[in-house]
């Protein structure tokens, strides 16, 4: 390691974030000319969070599997490190080689949540790469984005050269190979390349190839490609057969503790449920499962190659996996003997059973988490969270039977059609869960229950039935939080809530169009970073930025959007049709639930994308 860099690490917190050198990292020899393209995969948050991301683990492996591509990693330096880097004029470097990002061919950012946008720009600044696509020269890296936020890439349109829409395993390799080919021809011109790539690579969105006009009322007047050969809409990519899709057989092993410091076994993609507020449940459709045989083989291989003693079965709603019984049984055949624990990150109350709980080794934690999301059955029907009170009581009963005493319940406030009764239902449901503890004859004796309610603010997201909904203002959400607080009278119930101010900015960025780029650029100029972190998020400064750049945040967050409006994200086709979202929105207001994909196909449209081991009808 460079002595100067090493010297700086002696003066920052958690230097293990920046030291690299992990077991399992990929190092390639640059001297023999076999590596033709260098890819810097950036996660715009701390090392601990970035290293925990399953998508990064997969794509790092998928890119490095190619002999002519070397993919390295970079994370957002924490404020103390950032300060040192600026003070000593040190550019942001990739962990593996220690080379500055500015000398890479491609710099990719995974966009997992809106509040990391300022970190993206901060990382570009630290890397000394011009923020705007239009200002970059031919020898500077191509900046590509991906991940869930790229389904509405418009607020970042000026900064990114292109976006990878959908699942990137194949697409990023194809894109990088095309770049290698085009660079080999000589006289490389980045704009020509991007245009060419947009016509060749499916799922590639190049914002500079589209023109947007606005109406007097501020809504979009027109949105379309500048050239006839560029697709009018970009359809997301999916891996058709998850059994055959690449899954890494090793992991870069962090030395310092990370958020998900365990094997993450991806069981299936998509979700059969269709909760109307949930973006993930829509954009990852159609459901595609892996078989237990493949999963078991992947788990064992990862165990041997990593030494992790915990396997997390990862997916949006693990108990909906059709072969969960077979999978857990098959895994337990060897994990028990090897002292390996199984854990499940997400549980639905309606499928939480004693049998399942006995198989997962949550022995270490005495707490279980469920997400009723709303306080009354009426509102749960509106959001299509098909969970009934009886299901919750049965599920907590199983937990109490097993000696658990703490339960965490997730809710949202500010949901469409919400009334005071719905808000009152939140503390009431929590108290009812406390009551369930005391009437349970098998409850752990001599202990008292603790029920924590955690209330998030509803953020209407693109590609959901609620994408047109008005978000409550910060004031309204704050009042609602206060109202819930006043009605928590049970001493066994603890109440926490999210900050409405963060949720408001998140909504603006989530539904923004490309006019927001100027606000983000101003935020970057003012040194914004780590807005997903309470210690750095400053609402008043955001308000100042919007004022300085002539952006009305209420236009994006607190307005009921018209159903016939051109939406900034209409340029992206996530598989699920706008008609379906509209239908679901109307059913929500009619308090009508929609069955899960497995019960009955609701014709969302995602089956047109194909896929194996799915419950979708053939397109």
């Amino acid at each position, binding site marked *: *390691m460079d*002595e*100067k860099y*090493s*010297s*700086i*690490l*002696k*003066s920052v917190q958690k*230097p*293990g974030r*920046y*030291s*690299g*050198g*992990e*077991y399992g990292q990929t190092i390639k020899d640059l001297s023999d000319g076999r590596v033709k393209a260098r890819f810097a995969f950036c996660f715009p948050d701390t090392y601990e969070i970035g290293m925990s991301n399953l998508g990064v683990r997969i794509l790092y492996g998928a890119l490095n599997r190619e002999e002519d591509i070397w993919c390295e990693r970079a994370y957002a330096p924490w404020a103390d490190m950032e300060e040192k880097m600026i003070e*000593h004029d040190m550019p942001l470097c990739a962990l593996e080689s220690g080379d500055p990002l500015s000398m890479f061919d491609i710099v990719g950012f995974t966009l997992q949540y809106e509040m990391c946008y300022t970190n993206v720009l901060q990382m570009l600044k630290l890397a000394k790469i011009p923020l705007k696509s239009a200002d970059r020269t031919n020898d500077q890296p191509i900046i590509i984005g991906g991940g869930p936020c790229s389904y509405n890439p418009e607020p970042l349109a000026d900064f990114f050269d292109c976006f990878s829409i959908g699942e990137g395993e194949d697409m990023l390799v194809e894109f990088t190979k095309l770049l290698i080919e085009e660079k080999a021809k000589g006289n490389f011109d980045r704009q020509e390349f991007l245009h060419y790539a947009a016509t060749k690579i499916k799922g590639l969105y190049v914002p500079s190839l589209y023109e947007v006009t606005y109406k007097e009322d501020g809504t979009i007047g027109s949105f379309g490609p500048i050239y006839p050969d560029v697709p009018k809409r970009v359809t997301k990519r999916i891996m058709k057969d998850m059994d055959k899709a690449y899954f890494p057989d090793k992991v870069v*092993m962090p*030395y*310092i*503790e990370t958020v998900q410091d365990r094997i993450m076994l991806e069981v299936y993609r998509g979700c059969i449920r269709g909760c109307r507020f949930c973006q993930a449940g829509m954009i990852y459709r159609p459901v595609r499962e892996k078989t237990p045989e493949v999963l078991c083989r992947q788990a064992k291989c990862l*165990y*041997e*190659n*990593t*030494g*992790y*003693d915990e396997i997390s079965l990862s997916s949006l709603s693990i108990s909906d996996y059709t072969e969960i019984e077979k999978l857990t049984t098959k895994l337990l055949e060897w994990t028990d003997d090897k*002292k390996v624990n199984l854990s499940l990150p997400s549980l639905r109350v309606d499928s939480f059973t004693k049998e399942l709980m006995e198989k997962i080794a949550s*022995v*270490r934690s005495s707490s279980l988490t469920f997400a009723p999301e709303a306080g009354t059955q009426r509102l749960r029907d509106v959001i299509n969270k098909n969970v009934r009170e009886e299901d919750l009581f049965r599920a907590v009963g199983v937990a109490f039977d097993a000696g658990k005493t703490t339960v965490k319940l997730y809710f949202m406030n500010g949901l469409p059609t919400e009334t005071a009764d719905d808000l009152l239902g939140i503390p009431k449901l929590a108290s009812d869960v406390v009551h369930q503890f005391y009437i349970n004859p098998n409850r752990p004796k001599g202990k008292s229950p603790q029920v924590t309610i955690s209330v998030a603010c509803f953020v209407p997201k693109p590609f959901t039935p609620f994408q047109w909904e008005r978000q409550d203002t910060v004031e309204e959400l704050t009042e609602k939080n206060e109202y819930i607080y006043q009605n928590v009278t049970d001493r066994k119930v603890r109440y926490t809530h999210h900050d409405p101010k963060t949720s408001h900015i998140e909504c603006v960025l989530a539904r923004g169009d490309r006019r927001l780029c100027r606000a983000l650029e101003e935020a970057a100029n003012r040194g914004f970073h780590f807005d997903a972190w309470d210690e750095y998020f400053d609402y008043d400064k955001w308000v100042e930025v919007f004022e300085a750049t002539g952006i009305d945040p209420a236009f994006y967050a607190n307005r009921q959007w018209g159903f016939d409006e051109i939406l900034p994200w209409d340029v992206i086709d996530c598989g699920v049709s706008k008609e379906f979202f509209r239908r679901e929105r109307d059913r929500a207001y009619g308090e009508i639930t929609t069955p899960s994909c497995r019960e009955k196909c609701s014709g969302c449209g995602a089956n047109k994308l194909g896929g194996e081991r799915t419950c979708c009808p053939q397109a």
Partner: protein
Amino acid sequence: MLPAGMISKENPQPIRIKFKKVGNLQYISHLDLQRTFEKVIIRSGIPAWYTMGFNPHAKMVFGLPLSVGCQSVCEYLDIRITEYMTFNEIKARLKTALTDELDVIEVYEPQMKLTDIGAARYTLTFETRGACEDLADKAKALFEKPVAMEKKGKAGVKEIDITKMIKSLDCRYDPETDRIVIDTTVSAGQAETLNPEMIVTALREQLGFLSEDILTEHYSIMREEIYNLNGEAFR
């Protein structure tokens, strides 16, 4: 080592692993190192002896903990194995589960107890403004009379004379690299331990070492060898 047939879960064989922790790995804390080795033991496939309790894990005992920012070519880890495996095989398996900067040096049967550790030898290398033979002499002279420094302990801050814990200290100027190099043996172990960073701090405070920009002035510390209470090389 015990004969193959005599090693079992009930009668595990003690094994000592000597390893190095250099380069980037100097920034990994002792706690993180312990967590890392738990995984290293699993992926190496060594038949390690596990504790029985509620949360079973491979039983590991480390020698002298190493401070963050300090490198070492003489770290020790004791484990026990429940099945016969040659030292060479264990070493080879560990090698595949480690990296260049955290690597196994030797595997053998412990000859001394970890509690018998009494001293450690370090090399401290300084790239500092005005490095010359004269400065090296001054640095050596500094530690020839008492050097009182504040040490933060559990019972608050107390003043100690660090030279009482310095068994030997030699200082020279290396004209080829323009660096000042200190070779010192200090107390280390259960009774008392001197963190070599204290020597760096003394030089910084009293002779103005490393007072300029951290990019042009830096230092490194390498733990070279560990000794027992009698001053013999640790085995």
